[in-house]
């Protein structure tokens, strides 16, 4: 059983290929990463899940911290760069995604674009941007910000955002849709939503704006997968993760515009290579430690 915080269109083709190649049937439970993480913790030792694949390092790190994940073999961990895997080897990154500001090119001019996330607390952005504070990807970004800038500064930023009249959404998708439709000027999202929209709809009046290196907004997050410690099918579970890191699967993720974390598979169409993306110098493993503070700060700032 795979608990997948990634959506069905993204995952199912790869699972079908796995079953075809190995004869191992995989039941996939699709839901949000946060929902599944909470469910796994509530299930504890009796979880039916063998593998958990999360959108973000923070939530899977939280599961790992509770001792619910088994260590992965080195040959699996070695498939990706060290910084995209858990320092203790309990989860491994599958794909990479960058945080961006998606903006409507008719409504936002080039010189207005922010130099960093702090600009969004300025008056000229009041009421013009969307955020999804209850969504795992926003939470994960805040965990990174806490690591990079500390709790106090992060709270200051969150309160600045909350005071700047943001439009609150549940997820990234609706933000991108609103920006594409011109109902919203801009929004903090992951990079691939817009690229998938362009792929579906053709030309749209929207673009991704990357924050510069060192800015907490410019963060590459790994979607991490791990094997549950209670799994009775550990070999099959490890095989599934290996399959997610196979060249074939990684190439599939590429067509959906996420960054393959295995070297040499390629770069999404029209995108900067992974190594050249602006990023933040933090350890993704540590985001598990800042998850609870991040959630508390978001609540304290009243971003709901």
């Amino acid at each position, binding site marked *: 059983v795979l608990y997948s915080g990634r959506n069905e269109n993204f995952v199912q083709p790869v699972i079908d290929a796995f079953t075809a190649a190995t004869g191992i049937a995989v039941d996939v439970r699709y839901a949000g990463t946060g929902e599944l993480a909470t469910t796994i*913790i*509530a299930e504890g030792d*009796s979880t039916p899940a063998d593998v958990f694949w999360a959108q973000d390092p923070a939530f899977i790190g939280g599961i790992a911290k509770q001792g619910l994940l088994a260590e992965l073999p080195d040959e699996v961990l070695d498939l990706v760069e060290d910084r995209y895997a858990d320092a203790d080897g309990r989860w491994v990154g599958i794909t990479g995604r960058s945080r961006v500001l998606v903006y409507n090119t008719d409504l936002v001019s080039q010189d207005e674009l922010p130099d960093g996330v702090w600009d969004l607390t300025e008056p000229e952005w009041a009421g013009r941007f969307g955020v999804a504070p209850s969504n795992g990807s926003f*939470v994960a970004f805040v965990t990174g910000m806490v690591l990079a800038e500390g709790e106090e500064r992060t709270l200051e930023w969150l309160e600045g955002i909350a005071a700047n009249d943001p439009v*609150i959404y549940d997820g990234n*998708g*609706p933000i991108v849709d609103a920006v594409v439709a011109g109902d919203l000027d801009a929004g903090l999202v992951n990079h691939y939503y817009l690229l998938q929209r362009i792929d*579906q709809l053709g030309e749209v009046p929207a673009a991704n704006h990357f924050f510069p290196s060192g800015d907490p907004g410019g963060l590459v997050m790994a979607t991490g997968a791990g094997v549950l410690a209670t799994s009775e099918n550990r070999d099959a579970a490890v095989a599934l993760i290996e399959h997610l890191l196979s060249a074939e699967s990684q190439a599939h993720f590429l067509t959906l515009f996420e960054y393959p974390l295995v070297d040499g598979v390629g770069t999404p169409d029209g995108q900067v290579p992974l190594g050249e993306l602006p990023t933040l110098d933090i350890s993704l493993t540590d985001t598990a430690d800042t998850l609870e503070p991040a959630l508390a700060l978001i609540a304290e700032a009243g971003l*709901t």
Partner: protein
Amino acid sequence: MTTASPPAVIPAPKPSFRQRRRASGTLWALAIAVTIPGAAPILHLVWTVLRPGGFDAGGISAARLGQLFGSTAILVASVTVTALALGTATAWLTTRTDLAGRGMWSMLVSLPLVIPSYVGALAMLGSSGNSGVVSLALDAVGLPKLGVFNGFWAAWGALSLWNFSYVHLITTPALRRMDPTLEEAARGLGASGWRTMRDVVLPQLRPALLSSSLLVGLYVISDFGAVSLLRYETFTRAIYTQFRGRLDVTPALFLSGILVLAALVLVLVEQRNRGRASLAARRATRPPQPIRMGTPGRWAAYGFLGGIVTAALVLPLVTLGWWAVQGMSLGNVFDPVLSEATRSTTVALVAAVVTVAAALPVAILTVRHPSRPARILEAVSWSTYSLPHLAVGLGFLVLSIRFVPAVYQTVTLLVVAYVAMFLPQALAATQAGLRQVGASLEDASRSLGSGSLATLGRITVPLVWRSLLVGGALVFLTVIKELPATLLLRPTGFETLAVRIWSASSELFYTQASVAALVLVGISAIPLYLLVTRDLHR
């Protein structure tokens, strides 16, 4: 929720000496057994809050709770008032006036019940904003586009539009049964039309209005999909946010417990009020004289009914259809969601049959052997029914993991949860049926030597089968639309239509979401047709 009105609205006939016969132990055991699954999650949630240290473990500040109560209460109050006004108006126009096509209008204003509120909300989003269907249509004729529907006003509109039909369905038979001589007397004594309405008609409608406002109010509290899509913060949505935003499930359970306590208070308040509300016991001796409408009034009425039907029925269907067509023209694969439709229909059918069967012992116990303990059993099942499905679902999730892991994430647990949540729908219908047939035939059968079981099978069930069918149809309709508990408790891989609509729309696969929604609406129309023809023409 449902068109079933809470039980005490139908005034129980005084039990004759014969009906006071003692109930058998088997009957009690059965009735208690089917009520337990509903009581367990409530008790667990209440305990989460009230146990020592519950408040601290919840970790939700009092200020935040106050805020959530406020925003939820405003929505509940405004939607209830609006739905009452709309539903009473449509019921009155279609029963008491001489408008043409009253039967057709009555049917049309009941049909929005096939549209779950989250589907309605989805359609509202799809029709408004810069690229919305209605916006594009307005733009084409040179009118300004609609702004995006969201926040309070959108949630208010959506929940009013997709709930007022309950009021219509409950008020219509009440208006029809009402004795017209009272009104005629009032008019004869010189009271104006409005005064007659206020002082004579509305007081007689009180029981119907009270039970429909409870129904609508509880629905608003429990709604999860529409307020999430339209981005209005209520208690139920906050439970979900806590559930997915935190690693620990306790804060979500805590909020659910608080909500359970609040809903119980609401049910109690309604039951107190109901005691004073038994004015409409007299039956009409003849149909009332239809009120003749003047030409302007007639056109205003047509405009009103037409407007409502357009907003609640035509627009969502057009929007969904447009999405489906547009998606396919963009080359999206047409997915007929056949396996989802099969799963939804099967699980709803099974749940309906089991619920009706489970309701039978409770109904027999409460109608044939009324007693205080029997009333308590009945009240227990009504309280589960009145709770947000998300809260009940969380309760079942946690309890089954802890105590019966064997059924966790199985269809069995899902069906048990449905039965626990929707038992009163079948119960109310069965009780009404039992009251109508009386006990004399059953007694005769027993006195001729038939056992209890044989009497049940040969006499009781055949006599009330129509009521059982109605109860089953109601449960089917509710189960197939149910979203939050299904999301939490479904077996892995068991995607139903409701789950598909939800996941596809949150991933922006609108083509798939709209096709699934249209299929769901189509399937729901069948049991609704059955219910509407029963409710409106009896």
